[in-house]
Structures are given as C-alpha cells and as structure tokens.
C-alpha cells in the first residue's frame, strides 16, 4: 500500500471540510418577495445583523425587484456612474447598497439576485478573496448542472465560456457576513448603456471597447425561464446543505422600514459620494 496519502483523497478532505462549513447550520430560505430597491438594501443589513445576534438562522434570500433600479456600490460616486437624467426619464430608482463593488442596472425580470446572511465564523481562517469564491462555489456547480460552462473569476465574478454572468459583493456587520450576488438573466443593453456611465479607464484593462461584449445572460445560455433557474438553485442548495422555507418576521420588516426611513431612503446616504 502506498504510504503517501493519494492526492485525490487530500482534495476530497478539503472539499469535505468546505461542505461541513455549510452543513453545520440549519439554513433558512426567504423566497423571492417583491420589495422596492431601498427596502431590499435595508433588508440586507436587517437580516445580517439578525444572524449576527443569533435571532435568525443563517439565511439564503432571493430578491424580488418591484422596479427598475441602479444599485450603486458602497464607495461609488453617483455622478461618475449614473446618467441621472436618463434614470429620471426612465423611472429607474437609484439606491446605494452596503457592500462595495460596482453599479448594477436591474430590471425586475432581468436579474437573479440573492443574499447569504451567515455568521462570520463560517469563513473563519479564510482570506476575503477566498471567502468570495467559497460563497459562490455552490452556484457554479448548480449552473453547470444547467449546462452553463461557468467558473469563478477572482475577485468577485461569475463568468463562463458564454461571457460574464454576474458579480458578488460582501459586507460584514455585527459578527455576520453578507454575501450577495447578482446574475444577469436578460439584459437591456440599450438602456443599460444609456443609464450607466462606464469610465474609459475601466475599459483599458478589460481590453474591450463595449461593455456588452463581455456578458452572457442566463436566458441566452440556457433558454430557461427565470423562475426555473431560481427553482434549480434552491433545489441544489437544499439537496446539498439543507434548507427550510421561512418568512420575514414582523420585527424584521419593521426594522428594514426604519432603516429605509433613517438611512437607505435618504439623499444623505445616496449622495454620500455625490
């Protein structure tokens, strides 16, 4: 018998430890519920803090979009990222989320967004870049089951042979981590091109002249309904880690509303970087 541990066994042990990090919790699912974009970003904070306090089990939440929106990263400047006149004309809400990263243009049926709210202990010992890849690894596997040749591209992208699919961002609050990801389902490139301002500096490194050359929305890649894809993601997660359906508590909804009133719905927050 070989005295060395076979390499496949080492890999399996690492994988198994990663699986255990997920399986140690009793995961809750908050299925897609329609909220305005400000409430969605407030819920990110409400639920992350609730998990940090131990008032809520670790949670997978799918977002339901009730309107078009541009969701800005925590550190982005409004004027550098958005054509405000186009946003106003087209009824596109502007909101700022609590995580860093780039602006996303969202249409209700055009994107699939979810948040993972988990104790920070879940990613103990990992670097930030490692934790990004870790939280989206199951999605990559679920997409591959749908025939999408997807992989994780550090720092925070889900990409594929068919083009970039989505991006992730994280924030940490009160002993908990928020990891949220948005994937493109169907893109309105014309409107996105008008409402978002893309800096020339940014395109230098990407080596492309037009942003639309590097996206591979899931409808184009799978020909599946948006709800079918979401159902598949949930099924994959449930089978692999366990997942029990849950609802928002009255208290959570009140807390989110208060955060909209005090912070996320205010011009001070949106124009924190004008």
């Amino acid at each position, binding site marked *: 018998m070989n005295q060395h541990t076979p390499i496949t066994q080492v890999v399996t042990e690492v994988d198994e430890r990663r699986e255990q990090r997920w399986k140690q919790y009793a995961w809750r699912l908050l299925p897609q519920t329609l909220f305005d974009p400000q409430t969605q970003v407030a819920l990110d904070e409400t639920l992350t803090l609730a998990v940090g306090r131990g008032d809520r089990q670790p949670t997978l939440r799918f977002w339901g979009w009730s309107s078009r929106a541009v969701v800005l*990263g*925590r*550190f*982005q*400047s409004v004027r*550098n990222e958005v054509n405000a006149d186009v946003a106003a004309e087209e009824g596109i809400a502007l909101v700022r989320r*609590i*995580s*860093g*990263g*780039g*602006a996303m243009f969202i249409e209700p049926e055009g994107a699939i967004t979810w948040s993972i709210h988990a104790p920070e202990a879940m990613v103990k010992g990992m670097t*930030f*870049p490692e934790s990004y890849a870790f939280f989206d690894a199951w999605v990559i596997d679920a997409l591959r089951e749908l025939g999408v040749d997807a992989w994780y591209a550090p*720092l*925070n992208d889900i990409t594929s042979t068919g083009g970039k699919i989505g991006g992730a*961002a*994280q*924030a*940490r609050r009160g002993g908990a981590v928020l990891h949220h990801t948005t994937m493109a389902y169907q893109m309105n490139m014309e409107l996105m091109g008008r409402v978002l*301002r893309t*800096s*020339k*500096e*940014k395109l*230098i*490194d990407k080596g492309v002249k037009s942003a639309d050359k590097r996206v591979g929305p899931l409808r184009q890649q799978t020909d599946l309904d948006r709800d079918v894809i979401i159902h598949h993601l949930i099924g994959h997660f449930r089978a692999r880690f366990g997942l029990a359906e849950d609802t928002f508590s009255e208290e959570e909804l009140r807390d989110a509303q208060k955060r909209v009133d005090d912070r996320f719905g205010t011009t001070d927050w949106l124009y924190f*970087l*004008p």
Partner: protein
Amino acid sequence: MHGEYKTPGGKLVVVDLEVNQGRLHNVEVSGDFFLYPEETLTAIVSALEGLPAKLSEPEIASAIDRATPPGAEMLGTSPEAIAIAVQRALRDGAEGPAKT
C-alpha cells in the same frame, strides 16, 4: 480635478480634488473597490486632505498606508493605486472622465 486608475486585475479608484495654497483640498475617493471596515474610506480621505500637492506618488501612498487602521483590508485597490489616481487628478486638472 479628476483622476482615475484601475488596478490591473482589480478595481477602479476615482479621485476628485482641488488644490488650495499648494495643498489637497475637498478630496473625494470613490470607486468599485472593497474596504473592510467601510469606515476605512474616511481614514484614507482624511490622510489625503491637506497633503502638499507636490508630494511624490510613493509619499502619497505611504501617507495613505499610515492612516489605514490595523486590520483594515483593501480589495481591488491599494495605497499605491489611490496615489496614482491622486497624481492623475493633479496632472489632468480638468473635470470629467479620464482621457485615454
């Protein structure tokens, strides 16, 4: 005055500033990078505010580095990248997106 720099394989950092009596003034740092904790941005901006505009890139970077709280993490950008954006803002002068 406006300067931008994208870290290769990383994120964009944007610096807007004015110069008042040879010193950086009304500095704003933005971009699609990640900072943990989020308040690190305030520390970075405070470090830049009032710095002599004639400082070199490494000197600006080290001022940012010194002001960054221990344990803070920058992802996709760095003190050096921010210093480049500051220098570009000082050089380019004009408002508006970076010229290519």
